[in-house]
């Protein structure tokens, strides 16, 4: 398992730079090397360039919102699994995201172990096999 993690392609999308860079560093300490972008537009560009297995997507960002990114992805890259991050809890937006086909959602602040669990499940769902 642990050996495979370096092959996981994870994209972290959040405008909160301090949060996302720290989270990325913590993930890398756990053998995951995520790519990091800070807005929706950039995220889509990166995904088009090379599709990740899992996108961890903040819902509330300036400019393009997480849900818009999700909607676009559902068409262009249906195989990509999306874990939504929200500061709001189980609000309508999160429900809407689930309906749009997000893999799951998590409420900030998140527990790193929970996140790892979710990512692992999402990798399974993405059909990644070692």
């Amino acid at each position, binding site marked *: 398992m642990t050996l495979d993690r370096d092959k996981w392609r994870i994209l972290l999308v959040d405008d909160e730079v301090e949060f996302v860079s720290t989270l990325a560093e913590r993930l890398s300490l756990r053998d995951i090397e995520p790519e990091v972008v800070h807005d929706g537009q950039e995220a889509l560009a990166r995904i088009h360039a090379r599709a990740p297995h899992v996108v961890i997507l903040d819902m509330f960002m300036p400019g393009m919102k997480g849900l818009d990114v999700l909607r676009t992805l559902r068409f262009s890259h249906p195989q990509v699994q999306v874990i939504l991050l929200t*500061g709001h809890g189980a609000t309508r937006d999160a*429900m809407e995201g689930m309906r749009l086909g997000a893999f799951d959602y998590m409420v900030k602040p998140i527990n790193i172990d929970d996140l790892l669990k979710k990512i692992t499940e999402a990798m399974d769902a993405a059909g990644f096999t070692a």
Partner: protein
Amino acid sequence: MTRMEHSPGVPAGSHGSTGQAAAQQRADLHDGVPPTRYRLLRRKIVALLLGVAVAPLCVLTVINYQIYQTIVAKEFEAPLRALVSKTKNSFELFFAERTSAVSFIASAYPVEKLSDDKALADIFEVMRQKFSGFVDMGFIDERGRQVSYVGPYDLKGKDYADQPWFREAALHGSYITDVFTGLRKFPHIAIVVRQLGNDGKWWTLRATVDTRQYERLIAAMGISPDSDAFLLNKHGILQTDSTYYGALLQPIPFPMPRTSYETQVVDFKTTDGQAALMAYVYIPDSEYVLMAIKPKGAAFSTKGLFRADLAILLVASVLLILLVAYKLTGDLVARLKQSDERRELAFRHVEHSQKLSSIGRLAAGVAHEINNPLAIINEKAGLMKDLLALEPEFPKKDRFIKQIDAIAAAVARCRNITHRMLGFARQMDVNIESIQVNDVLKETASFLERESAYRNIELSLSLTEGLPAIESDRGQLQQVFLNMLNNAFAAVNDGGAIAVATWRQDDDTVGISIKDNGCGMSEEVQRHVFEPFFTTKKGTGTGLGLSISYGIIKRLGGDIALTSKPNLGTTFTILLPVAHGQGGVQS
């Protein structure tokens, strides 16, 4: 628990500045509609109704009274007119008969016979038998000397040349004199007929008639004692005794009415000032006027015309109108007041829910804003711990890790707070999700922990473990439970007890009860509690809590019921379906 955690959940009215502001607002609203306004309004409407209803009624009554008065007048007048006309005819007949009898004698018998006392007496005797009232008769020659005479007095040879009737007869051919007493000391009249003899000389036949005959005719009118009837001559000299206006041959004390041979009825004032009617007629071919005076008396007075039935009707109608107007306006104004109050309450409720939703939005915003930096702290601390874990042992490494754990714990606590706030904010959303009733109850109860501690109220939860998750709206259920608990808190005294329980009713249903040992409700109150705006908390209640709760529970396919005993307490029972959209719960 921190104060922060409670602020959004505690009802607005129960503490702090929001409560004071709300109370102030309510006071303002009450000031806006002073009770005197309704009283004034009511008085105005009653006055108006009375004005439009009673005024025409009074006018009608007055008109009715007047019509009645004229009818009575006519009814009063007509018999008097008829009586006078009839009596006039009798008088006319009386005069005509006697005049023609005398005329007949004058023309039928030769002068020689008439001038002979013996023959005249025979003739007179026949006439007397035919016509009553004749007293005597005399034959008077051209020079006015009575040649022959038959009668009780010794009048033969008397000279009448200077008598006015002698001259009148010379002028008219025949003449009836006024009443006079003359020698005889009792009233009588003379019927005088003049005739031209074969010898070319005028002679005169004169018969006197006892006017007690008049009295008899007038007595035959049968008039009442307060009335008067009499005969006058054209100059106003009484020809018969009058009860009230003088004796025989005296002038009447009022001017003669205008000449008319038709019976006239005119208004008249009696000597003692009473209203009366006077009927009179000039008797044709004579000097006489027949007159009758009848006081209007009791029948005509206001008192006599006053009709008890009409008056009772009027008074009854006015009273009825008054009553109806009073009742009607009472109802009307009460309704107006009620709708004003409802509007005010609705306004209060809207305001309250607006306040709640803006608090909700604020809470959501704050939670979001705080969650992001919290997330950073969380990650930074997490990274520190990760990095420390990679370091070899160094002094106080354990203490560092402890500090980091403490930070993580604090972050977790903050996270709980923001989640509570978000849970409150979620009330505003309609959202069916899978929920644990027990969790919702726990969360709702936690909002009231501070108040229960402060008021020493025992709030106990006996929640059955392992209840199935139900598909329902978390926010709305929370609102329902909050309403129930708020009501229970309002019902109990300090030191009271409130017990919340859950159970599995059947496969498809869970049951929830909220029981208090508070003031309870009368049956009358129980009948109305689910009605919107029904409240016994004058000034502080909206009366919306239970009606909204009822609506929510019904919409969620559930049922709500209560049992209550005054002074013992109240239990609300709610049944909720496990699956959303399944048929209603049977209670």
